């Protein structure tokens, strides 16, 4: 069996000021999967954290979510939406005192034969009732190779200090 080192960091962004979103562009097609690790908070309490591909703002996304919060476990879905919601709680607060985190697997992002799927796990913990741990599967109905990724909130902005790192995984 062949073996080769992989899981390479492609780019890291740390916001030096409040911004509405973070975009990774000109992503090379030389990997098979991408992993995006984000650590963030938003201006507004408990707003959604989304991911979008290739600057497509059309209603070409859908997602299914499993979430556990102090009130119980729930599941929700969105169809024909303008992005994939990776979590409903952006840091469960408005500062990095209680940051949220998401690890998103963007599978087979550079093939041109399948729709693209993202698998994500997220957490947001605060010392009150605004907590969530969850998982999401999202679909982008497009067979194009993903060359740019945008993450952000549906309202307000990501606060200064939010970080995101994009990794590439190459299959043997």
């Amino acid at each position: 069996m062949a073996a080769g080192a992989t899981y390479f960091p492609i780019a890291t962004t740390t916001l030096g000021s409040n911004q509405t979103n973070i975009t990774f562009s000109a992503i090379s097609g030389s990997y098979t999967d991408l992993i995006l690790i984000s650590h963030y908070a938003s201006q507004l309490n408990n707003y959604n954290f989304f991911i979008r591909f290739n600057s497509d703002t059309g209603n070409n996304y859908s997602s299914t979510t499993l979430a556990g919060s102090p009130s119980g476990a729930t599941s929700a879905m969105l169809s024909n939406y303008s992005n994939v919601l990776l979590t409903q709680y952006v840091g469960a607060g408005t500062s990095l005192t209680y940051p949220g985190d998401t690890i998103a697997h963007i599978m087979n992002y550079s093939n041109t034969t399948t729709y693209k799927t993202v698998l994500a796990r997220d957490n947001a913990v605060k010392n009150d009732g605004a907590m969530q741990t969850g998982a999401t599967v999202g679909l982008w109905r497009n067979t194009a190779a993903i060359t740019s990724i945008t993450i952000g909130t549906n309202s307000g902005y990501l606060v200064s200090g939010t970080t995101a790192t994009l990794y590439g995984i190459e299959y043997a």
Partner: protein
Amino acid sequence: MAITSIKTGSSFTNLIKYNDFLAGNTAYQPTAYESIATVTVGSGGSSTITFSSIPSTYQHLQIRGIARTNRSDAAYDIVKLNLNSDTGNNYSHHFVYGDGSGTSAGATTSTNTIFNYYVGTGFASANIFGTLVIDILDYANTNKYKTTRTLGGVDFNNGSFGFIVLGSGNWRNTNTITSISLAPQAGNSFNQYTQFGLFGIKGA
């Protein structure tokens, strides 16, 4: 040819002396995460995907991939995972999932495989594949039964259901894992473009 001495002259002034030939560059550090093997299903489909002769030189294994099966009566299917060709009732598994409107959890004991939920099928809209990320922990340790954990899911944009699943499995055997087989549970073949990669994660 080894360099045994360098003589400085008028062209070699104010040089920095380095203790090695990296000359100020950082050393390349390979990641601890290595790609071991990949299987991509061709146009004829494939009933089973097997990774064999897995080296025992890693700490953990991870399987990643996208899949679609030829199941024809539902849009979703399960991927069965068997270790070292063992098809006895030596496995157990459990799951919790969300389907877009509710949640469910369940378990199966003393069964002959580990279920990994869910992937797409030929019954679903074209181009929709499910995805799985499966971690197999301490696979070469001969003092432990082996455990797996899975993050999987498939979304159909159908407004009715999708699946996001957290799962785990156990193989009641202390042997080092040397082969892993994946197969559809309801369908009898993986469709073209299904792809799984096996990765090894090194320990210190």
